[in-house]
């Protein structure tokens, strides 16, 4: 068996904004939005971004392996938080992957995810593509309605692949359906994009690929064409001779189009439902087209991500407050109160000393007494030990735990008050006072079970920096009896 896909994972933010809420707020200006006011779109919580979603999706994928460390990490997005601070390296350190991993950021195209995958598979190496997108659209725009935030990951390699890579082709064409030269996207007429773009560029690449793979269009069981145009995949499929039933749902009703992450998200969804022997055709469109052909193997049922697409879609909280969406996306200047005015400078030399704690969430385990602790300080915290330099690094990112103490603080500044935080006790030892994120009112008690997640802690608007750290999230499990 050759190269191919060995695993996949996904993350869709829990918040799902009802499109009707957007339409209701904006129809006074653009009545046509009412026609789009169906279903819901995913929205990042204020502390989620491309990197944090990428950590979730990659973690979801890696959880399906036993200690797998891909030697190459491609991170694809058009909305990286940093233009020059390698986002994939932050991702790598948050995932606690080996430092000898090749980390690459790929951006500037809706094809960033598919091109990364193609490059990785053509190169023949083991690796992982993580694609993540958090596009901001102007208030009241079609993009605001039709887009969503999401991330997905696929692992590649040889050995027991779940989907064999049969071939891939790429075509470059500076067809400017849209572009982003400043803060927001600017696009051209949909009908032109469909007729001159989708219906000409995609068939050319796909036809060439199918011919080179000696495969007929009718053999395609899963056809992925990420687009915000609802009817475009059908039109392209018809032109190519692909059965209408093969079109992979664009998740418009539940997620929206997540830019460069969308092809990988849909690929993950297809892998979740594919049966052995089925053919998956993945396309990515943007200044040309990528097309990749896979065939699911007998091992397709053998890989299980932690949650997968269906799991992350099911972890949903309905949002009806459009004003909150605007605030979370920095589309309105909110009054923060004076407590929100404090300086949030990051002292980079200090951060560098604490990267293992702040990004990788490593604590320590004492070699003398066995006490697990976080943060890892010079002396062991056990009052009976206090040994010097006695601790080995100990990972907490994969640990679960329970709430010891908590509060909902309405005095301190928080972008989504109240601020929930409290003391967490980890299974296997260690405890830490942490922020809780995305707590439902009444949804936390001492004893509540938690998992931990890499999130944005603070934004520093004066310097364009953002701080990350790990936060606890309440698991929807029964409170323990202890």
């Amino acid at each position: 068996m050759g190269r191919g896909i060995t695993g996949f994972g996904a993350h869709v933010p829990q918040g799902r904004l009802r499109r009707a809420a957007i339409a209701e707020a904006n129809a006074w200006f653009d009545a046509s939005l009412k026609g789009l006011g169906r279903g819901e779109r995913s929205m990042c919580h204020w502390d989620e971004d491309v990197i944090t979603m990428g950590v979730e999706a990659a973690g979801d994928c890696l959880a399906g392996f036993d200690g797998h460390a891909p030697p190459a990490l491609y991170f694809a997005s058009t909305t990286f938080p940093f233009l020059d601070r390698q986002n994939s390296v932050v991702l790598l350190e948050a995932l606690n992957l080996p430092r000898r991993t090749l980390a690459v950021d790929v951006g500037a195209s809706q094809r960033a995810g598919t091109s990364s995958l193609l490059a990785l598979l053509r190169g023949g190496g083991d690796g992982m593509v993580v694609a993540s997108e958090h596009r901001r659209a102007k208030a009241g725009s079609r993009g605001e309605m039709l887009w969503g935030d999401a991330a997905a990951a696929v692992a590649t390699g040889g050995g027991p692949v779940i989907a064999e890579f049969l071939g891939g082709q790429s075509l470059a064409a500076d067809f400017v359906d849209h572009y982003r030269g400043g803060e927001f996207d600017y696009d051209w007429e949909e009908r032109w994009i469909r007729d001159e773009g989708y219906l000409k560029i995609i068939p050319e690449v796909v036809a060439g690929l199918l011919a080179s793979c000696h495969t007929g269009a009718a053999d395609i069981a899963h056809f992925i064409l990420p687009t915000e145009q609802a009817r475009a995949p059908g039109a392209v499929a018809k032109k190519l001779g692909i059965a209408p039933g093969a079109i992979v749902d664009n998740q418009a009703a539940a997620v929206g189009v997540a830019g460069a992450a969308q092809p990988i998200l849909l690929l993950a969804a297809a892998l979740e439902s594919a049966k052995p022997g089925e053919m998956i055709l993945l396309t990515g469109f943007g200044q040309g087209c990528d097309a990749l052909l896979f065939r699911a193997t007998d091992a397709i049922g053998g890989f299980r991500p932690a949650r997968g697409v269906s799991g992350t879609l099911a972890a949903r909280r309905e949002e009806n407050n459009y004003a909150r969406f605007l605030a979370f996306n920095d589309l309105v200047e909110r009054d923060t109160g004076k407590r929100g005015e404090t300086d949030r400078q990051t002292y980079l030399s200090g951060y560098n000393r604490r990267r293992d704690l702040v990004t990788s969430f490593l604590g320590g385990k004492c070699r003398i007494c066995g006490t697990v602790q976080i943060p890892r300080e010079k002396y062991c915290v056990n009052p009976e030990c206090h040994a010097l330099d006695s601790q080995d690094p100990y990972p907490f990112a994969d640990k679960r735990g329970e709430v010891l103490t908590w509060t909902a603080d309405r005095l301190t500044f928080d972008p989504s008050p109240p601020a929930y935080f409290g003391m967490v006790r980890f299974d296997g030892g260690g405890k830490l006072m942490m922020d809780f994120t995305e707590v439902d009112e009444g949804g936390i008690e001492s004893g509540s079970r938690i998992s931990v997640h890499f999130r944005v802690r603070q934004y520093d608007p004066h310097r364009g920096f953002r701080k990350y750290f790990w936060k606890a999230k309440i698991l929807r499990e029964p409170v323990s009896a202890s």
Partner: protein
Amino acid sequence: MAQGIKDKVAILGMGCSKFGERWDASPADLMVEAFEECLADAGIEREAIEAAWFGAGIDAFHVGASAMPMAIALRLNYIPVTKVENMCATGTEAFRGAVYAVASGACDIALALGVEKLKDTGYGGLPQRSRGVENDMYWPNLSAPGAFAQLATGYRARHRVNKRDLKRAMAHVSVKSHANGAKNPKAHLRREITEQQAMDAPFIAEPIGLYDCCGVSDGSACAIVTTPEIARSLGKDHLVAVKALQLAVSNGTESSHESWDGSHLKTTRIAARRAYDEAGVRQPAEEISMTEVHDCFSITELVTMEDLQLAGEGEAVTAVLDGEFDAEGKLPCQIDGGLKCFGHPIGASGLRMIYENYLQLQGRAGARQLADPKLGLNHNLGGFPHQNICSISMIGHM
């Protein structure tokens, strides 16, 4: 073997400014107000002061760094002045410095003064501020009520107390302090409240509501200390002497070791044991006449009653609701109104507490005077339940 501080140092005089939203007063004005009262009470001239300790908690918002702001405000005579800062225990730390100086024999008369100007921030509550470069990277952005609210959840979980019962006991703590504060002309908040008001007030940090929080105010308090012999030679009788001065500082056990469950204050338990040993107190609930404890929040006072061994473990809710710590109870707490009604100008609070016990021991507490008190306990808590500084001092008759 050290003998401890008991009866080695006497209080020669004390002073305390009016606490409140002192829009009219600068930190220097507040210092002078407390100092003038203190000098008059001591019956000495400022030139007799040989060394001084200056407590101020949050520099950036009022006096600035170093001991100079006090030396300048009080026109001290180029004597040694030391600035101390130990969060909410700052005032007591200034007192400890002055007392130790006298006890050591290094000087005869020493001054301790604390001040804080909190009302120049432009908003309510304590000033938002950095916790330090490294802590700011990963600590929750917790407010003081947010930190102490966790004591309530930890206590509830440990003792299986339901939310309503604990909240009612917390309300009683505040109702009692407001009743006391109403009788005190120097208090900031001088209105009685009802249990229902306290229960119904909006949450600041669940389950801490508005009336579970102490006030935020400006104020200053100070003490002049000397040896009992010098005090007598200056014509003082009914001497009030220092019986114990203890401090316990967290070493990270509570925040990072599993032995602490968030239901109590480890430092208070340790400092209390040491203070009782130092003062020779064997049965604290019987021997102590009154307490001024760090009621930054009602839950802190409630839990502190257990940590000071003045209520059995898990029994504070009942003891509070039974009125044991009310003005007429068997062991009055915050007879002056406490932080609840004085507010908490950080550098001043510890000395303000000692001031009340000093007045009570001298029979000068006016409308709130207790009958024949003999021993007063002062308790300060700086920081947060999981990481804090506890100071416990005791004063009493010689």
